[in-house]
């Protein structure tokens, strides 16, 4: 309840993220001994000088291959979790995830189209067409959902928007399936994209998503108290002096932009946006004052850690991160639910 407890949770989240980043950077095939990596990283800090015994070639592996992947994982995990928490708050529905309004299915359609049509010419494009198209389609699909939902007349409750989302998601998925069925040669590529990936991430990928994630997270964190106000219902929120449609719109736009950006570079990593906020509710309480910032920190750390086993299980191919998140996350979540229920 108190500010002091809030602060302790933030510190705990920060430490968890830092630890996850160190673990993520230290483990992987090739490269230096794991224990030397944190030393090498500290060595790079200003003033600090430690002899880590890491050669320049090894450092390159850490800095150019592992770090972008780790940082991208943190951005994606944090973004999906904070967006999931915000969506759940805005729609007062605990079963909602950040893909609800079509960000994921739109991105999937965009990526499918780019891989199908743009395949032949993509080598000559100035930017990689897949994330760009995925992003445009993700944002476009959510926009369509919003327009459809608003045309039902009900800006007063989020329900119409959720229903519009269901319809639009089915529609885009149907188109995607149709396109895929006509172009069976790209099925494998599209499937891999959909399962989500952090492998091969570059600093360029990181630079691509950072602005969106930063803006989105700042808005969502500033709006965290409004999410608490919304918990008592639209009407009471409005008698408490809040403009409900405007608040809902701002939060949805911010969460969607960030989600669309990370989904376009990493594919559809499922489960994180649903389960991380819930886990935090069970651990730290249901107030969005906590759930929003903690989702960012713990979600970021969680995805970085979840990416580690995938890197080890590389035979015959790297295990997709979406598989790992569900594989670790689902049992953990059930465990948490059970222990909490027994404690009550």
């Amino acid at each position, binding site marked *: 309840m108190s500010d002091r407890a809030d602060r302790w949770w933030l510190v705990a989240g920060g430490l968890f993220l830092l630890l996850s980043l160190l673990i993520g950077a230290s483990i992987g095939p090739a490269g230096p001994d794991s224990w030397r990596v944190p030393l090498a990283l500290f060595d790079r800090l200003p003033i600090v000088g430690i002899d880590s015994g890491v050669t320049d070639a090894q450092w390159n592996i850490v800095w150019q291959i592992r770090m972008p992947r780790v940082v991208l994982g943190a951005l994606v995990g944090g973004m999906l979790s904070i967006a999931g928490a915000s969506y759940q708050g805005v729609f007062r529905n605990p079963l909602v995830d950040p893909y609800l309004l079509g960000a994921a299915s739109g991105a999937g359609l965009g990526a499918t189209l780019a891989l199908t049509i743009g395949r032949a010419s993509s080598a000559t494009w100035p930017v990689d067409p897949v994330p760009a198209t995925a992003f445009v389609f993700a944002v476009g699909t959510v926009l369509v959902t919003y327009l459809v939902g608003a045309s039902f007349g009900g800006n007063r409750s989020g329900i119409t928007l959720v229903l519009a989302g269901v319809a639009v998601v089915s529609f885009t998925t149907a188109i995607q399936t149709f396109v895929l069925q006509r172009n069976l040669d790209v099925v494998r590529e599209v499937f891999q994209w959909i399962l989500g990936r952090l492998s091969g991430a570059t600093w360029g990928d990181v630079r691509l998503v950072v602005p969106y994630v930063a803006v989105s997270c700042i808005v969502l964190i500033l709006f965290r*108290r*409004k999410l*608490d106000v919304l*918990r*008592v219902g639209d009407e009471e929120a*409005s*008698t408490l*002096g809040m403009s409900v449609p405007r608040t809902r719109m701002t939060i949805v736009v911010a969460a969607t932009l960030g989600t669309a950006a990370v989904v376009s570079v990493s594919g559809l990593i499922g489960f994180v946006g649903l389960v991380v906020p819930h886990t935090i509710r069970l651990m730290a309480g249901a*107030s969005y004052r906590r759930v929003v910032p903690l989702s960012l920190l713990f979600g970021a750390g969680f995805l970085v850690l979840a990416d580690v086993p995938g890197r080890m299980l590389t035979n015959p191919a790297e295990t997709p991160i979406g598989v790992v998140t569900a594989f670790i996350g689902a049992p953990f979540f059930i465990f948490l639910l059970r222990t909490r229920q027994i404690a009550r």
Partner: protein
Amino acid sequence: MISCRGVAVSYKKHDALLPFDRDIAAGDWLGLVGPNGAGKSSLLRAIAGLVDARGLVSIGGVDLSTASDRERAQLVAYVPQDPLLPHDMSVFDYVLLGRTPYVGRFGLLGRSDRGITSEMIALLRLGDFANRYLGELSGGEQQRVVLARALAQQAPVLLLDEPTSALDIGHQQQALELITELRASRQLTVISAMHDLTLAATYTDALVMLHEGAVVADGAARDVLTAERLGDVFHVCVSVDIDEEDDTVIVVPRRGFPVSDATALS
């Protein structure tokens, strides 16, 4: 002072409240009575700005239609009939929501907001519950928590929609006594919809009786609550006793059909 001029509410084509005109003096407690569907909630919701109403409502000279959501919330606190209480929200956090109309630009609450929240919690004798979850409270405690949140808004006008319908007779009385006390100590103007006519007569300064959206009587309880009118409006058979000593009105249900219906039946 609250002034209503031609306040009317329609849903689609159905008129829920016909044009309503009345002034309510600062510090007064006005009770709204009438059968279900009479338009009591519609009037309260119109003043609270929750429905698109025609006409004009002003509070202390401020026209509410030109006020922002935030300004309105600083003038009017509204307690709905059936408030949504998130079961896993703490009492303190819930009462703190009453400070929403005063939050700063970055959504931050100040030390004074927490102070006022604690003050209201103490005022409504909820000190022992501050860290409890809403789902862990009894009906009477929940009612006090909702009142505390409304009072934390520090608005001069308090609208209550059937504040005691869910409570037993003892808790009803406690809640109404509490509102009486708070009204005096905080100079609140109160408008409340009420179902228990005897309690309404006992605690309010004046009653307005609504029926099918129209005002059928307005004034002191003993003039508004006549057996004949209650028979017409509520289709109920009652006798009304007036205790001349302390001027209280007691509405007692009687067996049988009201006069008007009895003739209609035969």
